């Protein structure tokens, strides 16, 4: 499937007087699965909304295959942003039924695959005449996932697809995603708070922190830059001088720090333990800002 590059340059976005995205640049290359992670309020959904021309921006530019995406049917034909379902719509319950969502998706997305949608409906045991407001949180996520997958859009974006799904369904979701990716090689951007179980699925990870992209890198290369170093406090301090220390945890004289840089050699040079971190640990170290102790 041929897809273009989705590119944001100098994006700024404010709600009232509060700027939530600060001069942000991002490039999404075709044929990769991206993970987008960030804390609550980091600006993930706002960013995804702007990338897909569903939300306005104050300044900057979003292009797909070199064309501005705003009100650009040709570009938007290739892009699907399957948003989280809401149980309420305007001021009342969301009385639209699953079939209404499916029908409009079939009209809106030119690559829509009805047979695939039917297969997923059956697998997820969803009844199309049910109202959205009657669905459980997990079922709402299933509708979001179904629309995203069946859209067959060259660039497909899922916002928190794992929220509300039980662990069996989450695993199944990542399986479906990888199966689809193996067949089509389309681009996916998946935002999630359940980081660790998704880490192995993401070829690249984008970390959004307080409206800025602080990392956009191959997942394993990023994770491999970080280590925990622990031991007696003065030894740890000596060993880690010259390295970037992101987080410190002290219990008595025992100190553990999260460092970025060449820490593997330290275990041979000093009496400290050096252990690897996972993506979730790295995320907390980079975005914790002292909230996690």
């Amino acid at each position, binding site marked *: 499937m041929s897809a273009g590059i989705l590119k944001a340059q100098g994006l700024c976005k404010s709600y009232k007087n509060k700027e939530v995205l600060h001069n942000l640049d991002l490039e999404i290359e075709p044929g990769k699965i991206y993970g987008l992670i960030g804390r609550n309020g980091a600006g993930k959904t706002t960013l995804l909304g702007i990338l897909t021309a569903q939300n306005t921006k104050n300044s900057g530019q979003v292009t797909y295959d070199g064309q501005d995406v705003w009100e650009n049917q040709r570009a938007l034909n290739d892009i699907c942003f399957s948003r989280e379902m809401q149980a309420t719509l305007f001021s009342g319950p969301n009385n639209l039924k699953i079939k209404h969502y499916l029908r409009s998706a079939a009209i809106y997305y030119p690559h829509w695959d009805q047979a695939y949608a039917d297969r997923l409906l059956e697998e997820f045991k969803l009844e199309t005449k049910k109202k959205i407001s009657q669905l459980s949180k997990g079922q709402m996520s299933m509708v979001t996932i179904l629309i995203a997958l069946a859209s067959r859009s060259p660039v497909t974006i899922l916002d928190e697809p794992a929220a509300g799904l039980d662990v069996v369904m989450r695993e199944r979701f990542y399986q479906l995603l990888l199966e689809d990716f*193996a067949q089509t090689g389309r681009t996916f951007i998946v935002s999630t708070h359940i980081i660790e179980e998704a880490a*192995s699925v993401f070829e690249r990870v984008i970390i959004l922190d307080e409206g800025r992209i602080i990392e956009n890198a191959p997942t*394993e290369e990023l994770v491999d830059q970080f280590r925990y170093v622990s031991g007696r406090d003065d030894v740890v301090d000596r060993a880690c001088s010259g390295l970037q220390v992101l987080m410190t945890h002290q219990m008595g004289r025992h100190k553990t720090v999260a460092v970025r840089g060449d820490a593997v050699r330290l275990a041979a040079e000093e009496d400290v333990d050096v252990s690897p971190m996972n993506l979730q640990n790295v995320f907390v170290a980079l975005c914790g800002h002292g909230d996690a102790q």
Partner: protein
Amino acid sequence: MRGTLNDQSLIYLQIARMLEDDILRGVYQEEDQVPSTNELARGYNINPATAAKGLNLLAADGILYKRRGIGMFVAKGAEEAVRRKRKAAFYNGYVKPLVKEGASLDLTGAELLDMITQAMKEEKA
């Protein structure tokens, strides 16, 4: 191959290591085809690019080789190559930590060597 990825090391390294284990164990013999990128991706729920990185690492070490359009195969002499590679890593990965732990327990060199001799006897029996 092992059913799950569970340690903290990088996934592509785990994939490479699992395949090496299987080559040592004779699960895959010379000229056998190993699982493809997509099979590994599906089997372990990992990104195909990660699986490919693991396979390519073994290809670079001369343990696997690629047949265009077909897949990856176990190279001639792969078992020996895995053994050589593992032996090179054995000193740093096993011997040094063993000696370090022994020293922190105040074990003498003689005691450590006795234990190794003992363990070797048990392994044989």
